């Protein structure tokens, strides 16, 4: 499989186009013939990352890298950053507004869903600077033992 890099800009609070980058990424991976289960796991994680960028960030981007043996998905934003990553990773914890919750978002499942579906999950965040999440999916669908690191 050839090397491929695609970048998708995500706009804060734009709920109309939210999910489109994930759909496009899914189509790209299906076209490349990536294992259906890997595509499914990556799509879930990607959608969660995209929605988090829309709801919580001041804007950011998703970067898709397809290599020989793995697909990497990077979510990067320009702030505001997460003060307590361990708390943010707990299922059910959310800082989403009431309006966002009314739309069915903000269940506090996003980061946990990402970590669960990725083979490797790494998150870094600094308040005032931003958050960077890197997720790796093995193309052969052999899930790595060490699933998450938090720094």
């Amino acid at each position, binding site marked *: 499989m050839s090397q491929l890099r695609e970048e998708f800009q995500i706009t804060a609070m734009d709920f109309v186009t*939210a*999910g489109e980058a994930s759909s496009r990424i*899914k189509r790209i991976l299906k076209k490349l013939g990536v294992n259906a289960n890997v595509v499914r796991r990556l799509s879930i994680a990607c959608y969660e990352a995209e929605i988090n960028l829309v709801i919580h960030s001041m804007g950011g981007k998703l970067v898709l890298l397809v290599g020989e043996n793995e697909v990497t998905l990077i979510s990067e934003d320009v702030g505001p950053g997460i003060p307590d990553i361990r708390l943010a990773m707990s299922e059910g914890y959310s800082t989403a507004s009431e309006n966002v919750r009314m*739309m069915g*978002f903000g269940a506090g*499942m996003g980061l946990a869903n990402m970590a669960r579906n990725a083979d490797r999950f790494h998150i870094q965040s600094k308040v005032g600077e931003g958050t960077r999440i890197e997720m790796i999916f093995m193309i052969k669908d052999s899930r790595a033992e060490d699933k998450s690191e938090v720094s």
Partner: protein
Amino acid sequence: MTIQELAALVEANIVTASVDTGREVECGYTCDLLSWVMANGSEGMAWITVQTHMNVIAVATLHDMSCVIIPEGIKVEDDVIGKADEEGVAILTTSLGAYEICGRMNAKGIPAK
């Protein structure tokens, strides 16, 4: 059971125009929290929700669901129906409540995922 048969079962109108209603429905699910559905959705699912905004279509599409059932006579906006047609996810609307829809689907042997 096909989408067409499911629509008859739950007294629903199929509001999408071009989606294949002969597609099989594999299982059923009801939930209004989108992240929850992202975590628990699956291919061929019929998903019952009162949410009608664009992201319902994104979630259904990412899981390759068969259809979304909107209960209690809730209206779905045209742009959302258009998106569902584009993505190949059927939208069914019915005046029945989610509880009644689930009961009828369960009685006909449509499993939980």
